[in-house]
């Protein structure tokens, strides 16, 4: 249902929403409408840049409690109005865009730290809390969430849960889904439910995991209990330059196979080393830059570092860049994302993140690179590998056009075509649709292709939980309005 402002129905719904959350927390002004019409997805940015007005919500509602979320969802069900949860809007897949208008459920007012449990080492908070604010609060108590995504200052914890996000220390501390103990969720029909209090059990399928990555399509996550960690005594980094990506990958995989416990490993391909490592860190070299770190008690860190350096030296580096080059990377880890270091308009760019096993990951890289370069000779392709597992790692590939077509429809068509071809190439070579940014609007069309008949399972769950299809319709490959 689309609501025109001059329609009495609009006023009827508005009154009910005001009754649910309070007058000052229902906003339908142009300023906020504009802010919510654009997230970090390139298409609405481009649309705006070309003078257009991306779809705005009818109402921006700021609930203050799970009960208020439930009330809003009941109203939305009553009138079959789409509801799109919004955290920080920093998602790159268009997941938070109100593509059918309706209600934006802006979660930022639900930002309380409820409890830091020092016996369990966990924190319970509302999900609208900004991730940096949560980290600061936990640090004040002497701990850390160890969740350090580049968007820590931009995004809410709910957004990370909804996209199965990840931070720079994931190699040791895990992605957000590894950090979650339990969840409170408001289902699309307005029931407040809790998943089991511990993440490991044999009490049926894992309900928590059902909601992680559901991108606001299966309900609203309102509270979460996350693991926290003591602040390590020491954290150290070291960097090497390898002659090529393959040799560096051998070293990186070697680190993981050795079952040492690096907190971070990052490997930049030749083009990204030449472009970004030079620009941001000032390290001007030809080859593949590999950096890794360890944290914990200093003696253990030193021991692991020594062994890791031996593994890297055995793999045949071009240069040992030493500790300082590694530390510089850690200090500047967020700098890559500030303008003008980050790509931005008039460039057209996208992060084609995917993940695969060690036996497939290089094939995935080359398949994507070949696809992008052959089909779009004017585009650059760069990539790095971060978030390493015992079995493989994530590829954070990017394509960059220095300038996209002026005509917005043409620009969108070009953009979508890159995604279609590149992600299909990744899937063909053993990758997946996405590693940690989610599916959203951008990649929904590939879900059916990737999941095949298994998609009916997801669709069945969606239908059962959200019979009126109010929750974030048109995202994650689910039906639109």
């Amino acid at each position: 249902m689309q609501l025109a402002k001059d329609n009495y129905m609009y006023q009827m719904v508005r009154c009910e929403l005001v009754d649910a959350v309070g007058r000052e927390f229902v906003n339908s002004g142009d300023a906020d409408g504009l802010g919510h019409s654009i997230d970090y997805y390139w298409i609405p940015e481009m649309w705006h840049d070309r003078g257009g007005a991306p779809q705005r919500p009818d109402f921006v509602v700021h609930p203050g409690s799970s009960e208020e979320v439930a009330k809003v969802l009941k109203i939305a069900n009553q009138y079959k109005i789409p509801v799109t949860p919004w955290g920080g809007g920093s998602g790159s897949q268009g997941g938070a865009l109100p593509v059918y208008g309706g209600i934006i459920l802006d979660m930022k007012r639900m930002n309380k730290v409820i409890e830091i449990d020092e016996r369990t080492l966990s924190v319970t908070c509302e999900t609208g809390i900004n991730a940096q604010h949560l980290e600061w609060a936990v640090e004040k108590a002497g701990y850390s969430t160890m969740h350090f995504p580049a968007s820590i200052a931009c995004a809410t914890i709910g957004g990370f849960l909804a996209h199965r996000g990840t931070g720079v220390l994931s190699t040791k501390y895990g992605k957000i889904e590894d950090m979650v103990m339990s969840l409170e969720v408001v289902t699309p029909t307005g029931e407040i439910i809790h998943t089991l209090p511990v993440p490991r059990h044999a009490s049926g399928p894992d309900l928590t995991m059902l909601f992680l990555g559901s991108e606001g399509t299966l309900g609203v996550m309102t509270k979460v209990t996350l693991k926290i960690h003591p602040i390590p005594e020491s954290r150290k980094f070291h960097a090497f330059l390898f002659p090529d990506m393959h040799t560096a990958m051998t070293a990186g995989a070697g680190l993981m196979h050795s079952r040492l416990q690096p907190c971070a490993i990052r490997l930049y391909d030749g083009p990204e080393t030449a472009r970004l490592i030079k620009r941001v860190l000032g390290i001007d070299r030809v080859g593949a830059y590999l950096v890794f770190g360890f944290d914990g008690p200093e003696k253990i860190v030193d021991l692991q570092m020594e062994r890791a350096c031996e593994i890297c030296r055995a793999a045949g580096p071009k240069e040992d860049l030493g500790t300082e080059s590694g530390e510089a990377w850690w200090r500047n880890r967020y700098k890559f994302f500030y303008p003008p270091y980050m790509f931005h308009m008039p460039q057209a760019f996208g992060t084609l993140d995917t993940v695969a096993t060690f036996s497939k990951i290089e094939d995935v890289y080359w398949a994507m690179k070949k696809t992008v370069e052959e089909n779009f000779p004017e585009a650059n392709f760069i990539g790095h590998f971060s978030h390493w597992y015992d079995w493989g790692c994530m590829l954070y590939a990017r394509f960059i056009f220095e300038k996209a077509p002026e005509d917005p429809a043409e620009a969108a068509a070009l953009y979508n075509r890159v995604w279609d071809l590149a992600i299909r190439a990744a899937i063909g070579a053993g990758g997946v649709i996405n590693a940690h940014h989610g599916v959203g609007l951008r990649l929904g069309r590939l879900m059916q292709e990737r999941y095949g008949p298994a998609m009916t399972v997801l669709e069945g769950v969606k239908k059962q939980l959200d019979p009126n299809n109010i929750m974030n319709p048109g995202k994650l490959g689910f039906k639109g309005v």
Partner: protein
Amino acid sequence: MQINQFNEVISACRFCFMCRHLSAVGLVSCRESDTPRGRALIADRIRMHPEELGNPDFVDTIYRSDLSGANRFHCDGYHDGSGYDEVGLQLALRRDIVEAGFAPESVKAIAAEFQSSENWSIEGSGEVLYFIDPCTAARPDTTAAVAKVLNRAGVPFATIRGGCIGKALAVLGFASEAETAMRKFAAAVNATGIKTLLVSSPAAADALRNDFKTAGVELKPEVRFTAGYFVELAEKGKLRFSTRNFAASYLASDYLKNYLRCDCAEKLLALLGIENRQFGTNPEESFTAGEGALVLARLHPELAKQLAARIAARAEPGIPLITASAYTADLLAAAGADVSTLDEVAAEALC
């Protein structure tokens, strides 16, 4: 339009989320539009569609801002001190709004009041001229404290009060009226021949040091902020403070920290032996309840109250708060916080 001078800032901030965690107003309103990104999107929209400049919701959003320099300061940290001047963009937007005649009635009324209130009165004589701005004047404890410290140091001083030095007008977007006010103030001050102009208000310090220079208005005396001046008097042996031996949280002034990059407040606290306990969870947020916007408490009283309440709620029991500006101190006191200004704390510590 004025905003065209800030095209680079608009282009950078409109799609950037990297400092939203420091948008004080955004943190209480939770609105996307109350962030540098939200405001830059508005500016961008106006740049492309100038007819939208008068959109009342856009105008309201631009005047809701606390003009804190915290975001700019954060951005600078990633750009070797030359980040994007998102506060400058907001001020330019305000000037455009005023020039196009779209300023809200409430804004016009405050501006008119400041313009008509110029009636500089100078009392006394001495080697220092203490400027009592309207905010500080409203907090007699602070002005009395400054007088006490100066008397104890044996520094003869005169006072000047009775108007707006242009800062409030500039902040509201009335650029030419602000310049007129600056010139009148400068003429009154310069005529005294006094060599040191002392201020307790960080906003006034910023205006006198930066805005006057930018506007090309000559101010003969050297401008000193009380905290820094008191430290200097102590170093010269003219003042003696007893060591206070207690913990307090100094809420860094937006103007001193983010605009003037001045650490005189911290130096004074160290001199007084006060343990400056980190407020809240981090040193980056602006905990000033809108000091940067100067008249936020009059323009949007509810919003200013919310900002103050957020700060008061974060205060640790038994740890008093210290502010640089009387503006912030008054708002926090009204929110139930135990708060003093730097000047008051210094006066209490006199031996």
